[in-house]
């Protein structure tokens, strides 16, 4: 019967997709900005230790890393404790001073993040710290994982 013609909404059924590229581009830019592509290849083994009272480093741009841990050798063997800065292992501890000083000149507010393997000895770390003192890079951060609070 013509009287009972089904009423249909006048609107179209499709979702407008014309704005989709814009949305996707926005997401894309977000991830492009947050991505840190420059990861170093570690030549030393780093297992970070845990600590309770830690703080976050908010400004990652200021951070430069020093890695200390047993050297990775072929066949999954581990060698002696070594210091790695950027992509190379520094055999000469005394050279660290110049490297860190050059970095400090580029960024005055530099924070040195020390990523040290939990089982490496304090002696090497203290040698590196002495060099950092001489290079005037005083802001350091002992990188640790977070541990659930005890009590």
């Amino acid at each position: 019967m013509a009287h009972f013609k089904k009423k249909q909404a006048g609107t179209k059924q499709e979702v407008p997709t014309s704005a989709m590229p814009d949305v996707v581009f926005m997401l894309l830019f977000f991830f492009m900005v947050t991505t840190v592509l420059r990861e170093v290849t570690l030549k030393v083994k780093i297992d970070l230790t845990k600590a309770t009272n830690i703080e976050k480093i908010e400004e990652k741009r200021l951070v430069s890393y020093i890695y200390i841990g047993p050297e990775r050798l072929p066949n999954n063997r581990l060698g002696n404790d070594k210091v790695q800065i950027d992509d190379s292992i520094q055999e000469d501890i005394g050279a660290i001073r110049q490297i860190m000083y050059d970095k400090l000149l580029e960024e005055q507010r530099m924070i040195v993040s020390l990523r040290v393997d939990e089982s490496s000895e304090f002696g090497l770390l203290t040698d590196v710290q002495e060099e950092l003192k001489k290079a005037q890079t005083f802001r350091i951060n002992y990188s640790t994982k977070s541990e659930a609070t005890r009590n």
Partner: protein
Amino acid sequence: MLLKKRERESAEINGSSMADIAFLLLIFFLVTTTINVDTGIGMVLPPPLDPTEEPPPVRERNLMKILVNETGLIMMDEEPTPITEVQSKLIEFIKNPEASEELAISPQAAIVSLKTVRQTPYRIYIDMLDEVIGAYAFLRNEAANQNFSRDYSQLNKDQKEVVDDIYPKKISIAEPDPE
């Protein structure tokens, strides 16, 4: 008669595949992104000491000497201490609630000196440092609650400075003795 037969091609670039390209890039960055926050214990190293200069005198009672050996045994002011008691002992030393002659004159004067040996594993050293930082965090939180009735983490910058002045973090990392 020269009639133009060819239809004009449209001058626009076909934009329909743009979304696909953007998606592809988006997925690439989604996969490669690692949003990991760096966490750690922040410290400020002292300037190098001039070997000809004498270190400034510190009164014995204001100095808490913590010695840690390579097996993780702790001495606090010549007393062996289990690690579970380090924090409470430090808090007592810094605050000195009973104004004892042995402990720090004031929280401002208190200095915690941490000394270890070269063979100490990093893990033990960080555990110790964590305890010291924890003691200060506790005290600062307490002071924040007293003065501003809020936790330390919720204070603004000026208020934090006030609390930091009450309990300045004076931690000295002593060099280990050469072998």
